[in-house]
């Protein structure tokens, strides 16, 4: 009897809080076994949401060459409008950020330069003077920033720009390399996050230590950047004089309270492949000691495509791994001193391969998730929205 009462009491307790998902929607209209959509981009920024509207950008080869596409779901619409090409030429690694009032800002690589335009109908603006790739965007506090990797001597270096907006027209207000000298080795895959002070933090992959190290620099409103910091707490150094250090790649940044949070793929446990790690920047001093994001059930499994979203109250990391046999999209929520047990996103898990998540929070704290659903008859770009409950 006591056990039955205990069970009843347990059943009457409210469940753990978590993301409550709405039905998933299909985003791309062109499918086929030889059409390959991609969501890869600097800072994994393939979805943006504001004012109830949602924009998704991706690259696919439906025309016979890589082109970038954008689909918008207006605030009052139940489904996405048919996608439109972002530009006329071959196009790679598009990103999108919210501007508000149903408008978005998109950026992409085309013909060896990076470009941006307002969606749905702004004219394109070339951002980079020279060869460049891996562009990303950040909007907030009335500011618009872009960052990319641009050729400077023998290597690429990270460049950050402040953009001005007049109606639907963009202009470059200021362009600034994070470091003034020529890079000693490659820099790639920048990530941006705005800060409350009007400044911007930029993170990137850096190879000056002869292996790949996520690094970051804080910039003020005038784009004066501080000395770069290592995000990882792993020192460089080889093994018996061989090699230069462990692998870590694809940093992703999000604004978190007064600072930023970074997640990346980290190979410090090199026998089980990349794991998802996180660190916080409180606005001064070094990044916090690194935290493992995936739980113990994902420890012996390689993780891929990590991303993070945050606002003043909520911080969620997403990625894909195949711990259940096939690739699924997983998430973990920040719980104050560590990350929660991992949860498979219901619409993005189960039979088949669901991978490559990109995510955004809107101003109401709703989580917007986009991923690839690979099927024999063609890959779908799928979208779902969740509310914290």
């Amino acid at each position, binding site marked *: 009897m006591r056990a039955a009462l205990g069970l009843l009491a347990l059943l009457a307790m409210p469940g753990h809080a978590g993301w409550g998902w709405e039905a998933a929607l299909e985003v791309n209209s062109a499918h086929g076994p*030889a059409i*390959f959509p*991609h969501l*890869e981009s600097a800072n994994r920024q393939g979805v943006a949401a504001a004012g109830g509207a949602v924009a998704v950008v991706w690259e696919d*080869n439906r025309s016979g060459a*890589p082109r970038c596409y954008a689909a918008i779901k207006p605030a009052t619409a139940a489904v996405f409008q048919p996608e439109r090409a972002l530009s006329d030429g071959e196009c*790679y690694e598009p990103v999108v950020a919210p501007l508000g009032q149903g408008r978005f800002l998109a950026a992409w690589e085309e013909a060896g330069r990076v470009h941006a335009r307002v969606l749905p109908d702004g004219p394109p603006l070339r951002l980079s003077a020279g*060869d460049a*790739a*891996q562009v990303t965007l950040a909007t907030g506090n009335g500011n618009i920033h872009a960052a990319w990797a641009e*050729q400077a*001597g*023998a*290597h690429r270096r990270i460049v950050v720009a402040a953009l001005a907006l007049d109606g639907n027209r963009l202009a470059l207000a200021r362009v600034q390399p994070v470091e003034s000298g020529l890079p000693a*080795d*490659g820099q*790639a*895959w920048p990530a941006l996050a705005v800060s409350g002070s009007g400044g911007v933090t930029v993170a990137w*992959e850096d*190879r000056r*230590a*002869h*292996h*790949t190290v996520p690094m970051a620099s804080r910039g003020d409103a005038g784009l004066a950047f501080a000395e770069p910091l290592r995000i990882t707490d792993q020192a460089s150094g*080889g*093994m*018996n004089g*061989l*090699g*230069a*250090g*462990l*692998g870590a*790649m*694809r940093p992703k940044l999000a604004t978190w309270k007064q600072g930023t949070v970074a997640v990346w793929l980290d*190979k410090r446990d*090199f*026998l*089980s*492949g*990349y794991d998802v790690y996180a660190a916080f920047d409180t606005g001064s001093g070094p990044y916090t000691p690194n935290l493992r994001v995936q739980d113990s059930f994902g420890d012996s499994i*390689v993780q*891929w*495509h990590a991303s993070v979203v945050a606002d003043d109250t909520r911080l969620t990391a997403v990625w894909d791994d195949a711990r259940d046999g096939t690739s699924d999209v997983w998430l973990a929520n920040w719980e104050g001193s560590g990350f929660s047990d991992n949860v498979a996103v219901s619409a993005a898990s189960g039979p088949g391969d669901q*991978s490559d998540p990109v995510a955004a929070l809107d101003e109401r704290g709703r989580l917007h998730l986009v991923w690839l659903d690979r099927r024999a008859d063609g890959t779908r770009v799928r979208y779902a929205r969740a509310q914290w409950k």
Partner: protein
Amino acid sequence: MKQPLLWLALFFAATTAWADPPAGYPFVDYSAGLKAARASGKPVFLYFGRYGCGWCAHTNKTTFSDPALKKLYSAHYELVYVDSESGRRVTLPSGERITEAELGVRMNAFATPLFAYLTPAGEQIVQIPGFKTVEDFRDYDRYVRGGHYKQQTLLEFLGGRP
């Protein structure tokens, strides 16, 4: 005209400097190697490395420094080096365009070095992770070029070796 060529040379110099293929071998990138394999009919030997990878450096120093192994693999394989963290673009036999890092995802390249043998059409024969010896690579060569993979797994083949 001279300036674009100079920049092109600098670009390739930079990208090859990022990677860590063993010295003296004619390694090329994935797309070039698969194209060459279709033309030559040779199998592909794919070396998944990582910039700064200690075990890759150990394999290069201990194993790939062997002159006879260099001669064997240079003569009979199209040699492809992939930097598992690189954003360099490659085209798969299916026509899909991905990055070298994404190729690692598709091949579940959880550790480096990782070695894969492909048919001239780009189909995977076998993949082997971790440090290997000269003798190991000679065994894999016999398994691949002898066509034993059509009847046996690598473990079955190695279990029955003289």
